[in-house]
């Protein structure tokens, strides 16, 4: 490809195949084939549809293709039918058999199979206008979302560059190279107010500006952080699997802005499908001349390679990531010098996260104001969250910054299942904190989250209900950081271990009130003295749970009780001898064989009641769930 004109030609040719125009008698069927879709069984669905279309010779008007994450995780596998002039239909919980039926009744017969549609399965009310509303867009889950970073995910085939181009792909790169100076690109990104989506929220344009000096005279690098390691976060994987070209295009734009001709994408090896699709995308971009030498005939060169991680959480930290690309142990380096001055191979480097890059092409195309019109004063645009935990609608959601937690949980997420009460939401993974129910109306943006002791992080949002013990949650994250601390600096290596030991002491019923002060003091030391972000944020789960759920810590320490009934050493199962009929079901189910028969027979019962020998009880709860007479209680 030598010019922008050629790009626009491809776009105009392919556009009608992606967004079907009115009157074209065409049908486009897409099946969600991200990791989660495939795991839920999307491959046989896709195969069934492809074969069915072939068998029935529908190929001339029906196209079938794979796409990335559609966003409704618990309803995978998902299949959507686009038809010119008609509303999209979203089928969920697909199987090969259902696909056959849809092919026959809907694709050939023209009648929507209502019982498989998302609005039917989710029981979301449709508008009462006599028409069938069966698209994902009709659901409460989707309606208030704003898809910017994820705009192509679930729509285009990520392994086909033409589809990306059809959706205006690479036009931003064309615009930047032909109509803008590198400084103008940086100014636009700066003016948009875009902040890093990977954790700390540093202004992206500022990062680029710092690295922009001395263009053309020094080697520089553009890196992408796709080492998404937070437990519970999967938005970067979804972008790479659903829209890899957006990241490639953005990195090329960044290369132009700072004067770099080489980029690296550091992806965790645990994401094989993301790696495969990204590699296909890079190869296609090279073939089209959108990566390589003399892009769009402007003399700008940019090349991109993938580097795989090897299972180290700390490599998500920017300096550690760079040492890992250099081929060393992924240990962080002290800053300054900042990467913009001395980064990868000691050269000026910028590093941004996948979701940050996914926003760039549209900022260039639509302008800074278009982007900054959404969001709050200091946090512009949208944020993608991986919604999980105790919530009805788990999934990938993208909402404007400033959306309240209540809206995300109650409206989009559909609330807490099983009639339980919302207790807290955890954001920011092991670096973040827990937001209590009292702060559910907080508008979510970088600064508000920091102010309440959590952080945006990469966007995992785990919802917890009354059955979750907050001390146990703090312990869970500490266990993770202790495992993943690289060991280079003492506050993190030793400090997190000591924090974990104190938490262990508390949850096993041996805590003292002084331990709370020790936790706090030690946490503050670790925060201020650790070398990198991992250590500096590691105590956050402890501090934020102590701040909002201090009474739970006290219950563990003083009353030796776990109010949520989670901490095994602090709970007891008891059999009520008056209610026990002596059937022995509990003893049969007890894995530790610790339930014995007593010699007491309650009035009216034929058999002697049972009793739990507490010393050997493993608190698994098997006895309680097997008792039909509700004679066993937990306390």
């Amino acid at each position: 490809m030598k010019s922008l004109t050629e790009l626009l030609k491809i776009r105009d040719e392919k556009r009608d195949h992606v967004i079907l125009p009115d009157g074209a008698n065409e049908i486009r069927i897409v099946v969600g084939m991200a990791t989660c879709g495939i795991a839920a069984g999307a491959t046989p669905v896709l195969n069934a549809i492809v074969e069915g279309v072939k068998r029935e010779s529908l190929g001339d008007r029906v196209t079938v293709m794979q796409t990335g994450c559609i966003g409704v995780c618990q309803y995978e596998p998902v299949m959507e039918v686009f038809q010119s002039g008609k509303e999209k239909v979203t089928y969920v919980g697909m199987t090969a058999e259902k696909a056959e039926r849809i092919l026959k009744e809907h694709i050939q017969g023209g009648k929507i199979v209502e019982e498989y549609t998302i609005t039917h399965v989710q029981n979301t009310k449709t508008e009462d206008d006599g028409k069938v509303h069966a698209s994902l867009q009709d659901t409460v889950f989707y309606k208030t979302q704003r898809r910017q970073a994820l705009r192509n995910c679930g729509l285009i085939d990520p392994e086909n560059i033409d589809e990306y181009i059809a959706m205006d792909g690479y036009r931003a790169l064309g615009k930047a190279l032909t109509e803008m100076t590198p400084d103008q690109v940086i100014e636009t990104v700066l003016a948009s107010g875009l902040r890093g989506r990977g954790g700390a929220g540093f202004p992206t344009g500022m990062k680029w500006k710092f690295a922009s000096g001395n263009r053309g005279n020094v080697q520089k690098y553009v890196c992408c952080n796709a080492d998404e390691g937070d437990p519970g976060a999967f938005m970067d994987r979804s972008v790479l699997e659903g829209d890899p070209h957006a990241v490639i295009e953005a990195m090329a734009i960044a290369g132009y802005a700072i004067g770099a001709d080489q980029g690296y994408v550091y992806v965790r090896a645990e994401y094989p499908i993301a790696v495969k699709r990204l590699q296909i995308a890079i190869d296609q971009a090279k073939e089209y001349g959108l990566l390589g030498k003399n892009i769009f005939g402007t003399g700008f060169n940019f090349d991109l390679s993938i580097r795989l991680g090897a299972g180290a959480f700390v490599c998500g930290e920017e300096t550690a990531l760079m040492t890992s690309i250099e081929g060393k142990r992924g240990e962080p380096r002290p800053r300054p010098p900042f990467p913009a001055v001395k980064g990868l191979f000691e050269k000026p480097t910028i590093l941004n996260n996948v979701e940050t890059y996914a926003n760039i092409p549209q900022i260039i195309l639509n302008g800074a104001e278009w982007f900054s019109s959404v969001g709050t004063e200091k946090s512009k645009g949208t944020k993608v969250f991986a919604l999980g935990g105790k919530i009805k609608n788990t999934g990938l959601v993208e909402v404007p910054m400033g959306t309240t937690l209540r809206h995300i949980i109650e409206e989009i997420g559909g609330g807490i299942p099983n009639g339980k009460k919302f207790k807290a939401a955890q954001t920011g993974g092991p670096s973040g904190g827990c937001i209590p129910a009292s702060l559910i109306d907080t508008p979510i943006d970088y600064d508000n989250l920091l102010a309440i002791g959590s952080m945006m992080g990469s966007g995992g949002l785990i919802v917890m209900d009354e059955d979750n013990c907050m001390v146990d949650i703090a312990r869970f994250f500490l266990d993770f950081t202790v495992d993943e601390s690289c060991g280079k600096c003492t506050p993190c290596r030793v400090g997190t271990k000591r924090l974990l030991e104190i938490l262990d002491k508390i949850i096993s019923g041996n805590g003292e009130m002084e331990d709370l002060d020790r936790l706090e003091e030690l946490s503050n030391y670790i925060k201020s003295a650790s070398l990198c972000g991992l250590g500096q944020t590691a105590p956050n789960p402890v501090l934020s749970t102590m701040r909002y759920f201090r009474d739970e810590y006290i219950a563990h320490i003083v009353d030796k009780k776990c109010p949520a009934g989670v901490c095994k050493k602090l709970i007891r199962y008891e059999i009520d001898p008056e209610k026990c009929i002596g059937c022995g079901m509990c003893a049969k189910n007890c894995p530790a064989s610790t339930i014995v028969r007593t010699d007491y027979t309650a009035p009216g019962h034929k058999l002697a009641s049972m009793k739990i020998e507490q010393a050997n009880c493993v608190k698994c709860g098997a006895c309680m769930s097997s008792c039909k007479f509700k004679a066993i209680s937990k306390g």
Partner: protein
Amino acid sequence: MKKKLTTVAFQGTPEQKEKLLAVIEKLKDQKGAMMPILQQAQDIYGYLPIEVQKIIAEKTGVSLEEIFGIASFYSMFKLNPDGKYAISVCLGTACYVKGSGDVLDEISKQLNVPIGSTSADGKYSVEATRCLGACGLAPVMTINGEVYGSLKKTDVKTILEKYQ
């Protein structure tokens, strides 16, 4: 988890070495090539024994000590091959109180393989795992995915006889 050095004798073939040398030759002049080289070496051999690390050190000029530092840092690099028979004993709470620890020790003793490593002939690897979720069958272990439940120390011998 701490990585244990292997006692399995190195059994690399000339074909494997040829492949490794080709990989090194292709990548060694690239900047930061060590991670891709180690990743591909592990694809070729299934793990990263010291012999392989030595070849890499010799061909790239990077010291063996530095290469070992990298191989032992990242959790996905394996210093031990999987045994022909991979034995995992559950050390979840329910299994543990019913004596899975004793079962594990017994297996380790009978096979003469330390926990977390592989026997010298490459036949058995023995490891402890977290809860397998089969608490009703406790204590539980799996050998190449096959589940054995309600184990007693005395069962170990008969079970292991099946895997010769």
